[in-house]
């Protein structure tokens, strides 16, 4: 009790005595603001719940997600111990949902590792170098920005072949330009500030300045954008899955599950409806959390 009290005081000290303390304090204050936002906390809670569900899927699942049992097909929710019923091949929808959460999180993690990183590199290089490099990189960015995202992702997947990794690649290829724009705008405002000049006088080269001093300052606006984009990424991935271009059967990807249940929608509504609720929940959670984080990290704009 007294230890946590001490930690709190250390975090909220008026005058931090070390760089580490200042950094932790700013994180802690951000967390306090975020915690006061009920909806953002709800989003965080839902996400934590989904991640836990994905991790512990083998323990939580009541059935094998791939086991077919044609005698038990299209059972209504609650019947014979199937919490959310069964699909057209008699597979337990609840267990498939749990394993499907793994796929969604996997897709999101892969896209997050590619698109913002590419955008960050292109944007900062473009903003810091200026001149013809800036013109060329921004023109390329504009070209990609002017493309219809879903259609382009469709065409990419069609060319590369259906599958999760190709879907991720297609989504990333169409998702990076906004990040490049943001990173460039941030770089332009930072580039001429005094502290950059000071570092330059100390002899730092462009590579060091961009990676050590500009990147860290771009992160917060990128993180907000990524969180807000996450819903769009999930919806696009689910859309590709629905069209049969993402994860392939018998994989329990949520979009593909909706597609399988589509034929039975008028008679057996739960088969297609329940995975949709899962997609909706995870997208909504990301949107709520993203809104809350924007209020914390970007207090300049008023979005209430």
């Amino acid at each position, binding site marked *: 009790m007294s230890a946590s009290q001490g930690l709190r005081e250390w975090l909220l000290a008026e005058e931090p005595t070390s760089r580490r303390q200042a950094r932790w304090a700013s994180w802690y204050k951000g967390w306090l603001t975020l915690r006061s936002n009920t909806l953002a906390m709800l989003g965080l809670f839902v996400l934590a719940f989904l991640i836990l569900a994905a991790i512990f899927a083998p323990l939580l699942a009541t059935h094998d997600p791939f086991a077919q049992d044609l005698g038990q097909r299209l059972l209504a929710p609650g019947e014979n111990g199937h919490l959310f019923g069964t699909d057209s091949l008699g597979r337990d929808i609840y267990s498939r949902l749990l394993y499907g959460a793994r796929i969604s999180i996997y897709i999101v993690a892969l896209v997050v590792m590619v698109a913002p990183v590419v955008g960050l590199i292109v944007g900062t290089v473009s903003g810091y170098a200026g001149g013809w490099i800036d013109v060329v990189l921004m*023109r*390329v960015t*504009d*070209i*990609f920005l*002017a*493309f*219809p*995202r*879903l*259609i*382009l992702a*469709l*065409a*990419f997947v*069609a*060319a*590369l*072949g259906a599958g999760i990794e190709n879907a991720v690649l297609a989504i990333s290829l169409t998702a990076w330009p906004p990040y490049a724009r943001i990173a460039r705008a941030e770089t332009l405002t930072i580039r001429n500030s005094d502290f950059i000049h000071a570092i330059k006088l100390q002899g730092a080269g462009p590579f060091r300045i961009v990676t050590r001093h500009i990147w860290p300052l771009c992160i917060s606006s990128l993180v907000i954008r990524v969180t807000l984009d996450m*819903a*769009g990424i999930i*919806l696009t991935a*689910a*859309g590709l899955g*629905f*069209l*049969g*271009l993402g994860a392939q059967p018998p994989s329990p990807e949520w*979009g593909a599950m*909706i597609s399988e249940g*589509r034929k039975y*929608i*008028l008679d057996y*509504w739960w088969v*297609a*409806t329940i*995975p*949709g609720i899962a*997609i*909706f929940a995870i*997208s*909504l959670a*990301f*949107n*709520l959390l993203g809104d809350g984080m924007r209020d914390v990290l970007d207090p300049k704009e*008023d*979005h*209430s």
Partner: protein
Amino acid sequence: MADTTHGEGRRASSFPPWLKKTLATLATVAATILGLLFVTFMIGRVMPIDPVLAVIGERATQAQYNQTFRDLGLDKPLLTQFWIYVTDVLRGDLGESIRTGQKVTTDIARVFPATLELATLGTLFGVVLGVPLGVIAAVRRGSWIDQLARFVGLIGYSMPIFWLGLVGLLIFYGILGWVAGPGRLGIFYQGIVEPITGMLLIDSALRGEWAVFRSAFSHIILPASLLGYYSLAYISRMTRSFMLEQLGSEYVITARVKGLSEWQVVWGHAFRNIRIQLITVIALAYANLLEGSVLTEIIFAWPGLGQYITTSLLANDMNSVLGGTIVIGTIFVAINIFSDLLYRFFDPRSK
């Protein structure tokens, strides 16, 4: 490419500024469309399907294979192939569809009006409801209507459109029976109306076939309102933030101090200043609906461009897929440039 830009730069001094800007815009359009074509060209090259086999089939002889290989220009260097591709597309030749056996442009001209009709009605829905909702949400900030606008937006940004379509079908068609099911027209009304524009609502009204009109309307209303919901979410959110910006500025305070009515302040002053921004947003929403209709068309068996692209995709008919991508991409670029120009000409601040 590089030469022309240099040439423009040197002679620029003798051009009036508006002409220079227009030329710069045209160069941007050209570069963007060239980039789009480059991407579709590369997609066509990296795909694992042999384009020759796709044309002649599996059982052709080696001689036939070689002949077609040369006919398709595949023996030429990649850059030459790209040049041929670009000139073909610019002449309006998108190749032939393997699936339908017709020119891709003919196919697209046939299916596009259906998509256009759906997207237009959807956008109309979004504008008519979204703009007032956004304005009122900004004026009555923090009230229940503001919360409602926020809620509408959140749902719109989080709900998979194809799922909402299915649930809509289940409720309004399956359970309530208020609207017609998938498809564009009831089976008894097919082929009665000779197409004029290809848009059934307009054609049937022009020809006075009101029974057909009613059937078409009951088919389109559900997918159009679902699409409209998505543009409503976007338009109301943007309208709200534009209005908030205006309402916080000093001229609005002056107008209030002068004693103008709230109605005049809001609609006469603040709203007048966001009109151009709004048109830009509406144009973008429209472009998004053209694209967003892909998944909706699948759900509602709507015979439009989205369904054409997806069906072709599953049949490995790459000419049609890439042709559709080029058409939608070009419309996207055109709408972007259009809203950009609009901004430049009508907003005195950008001059």
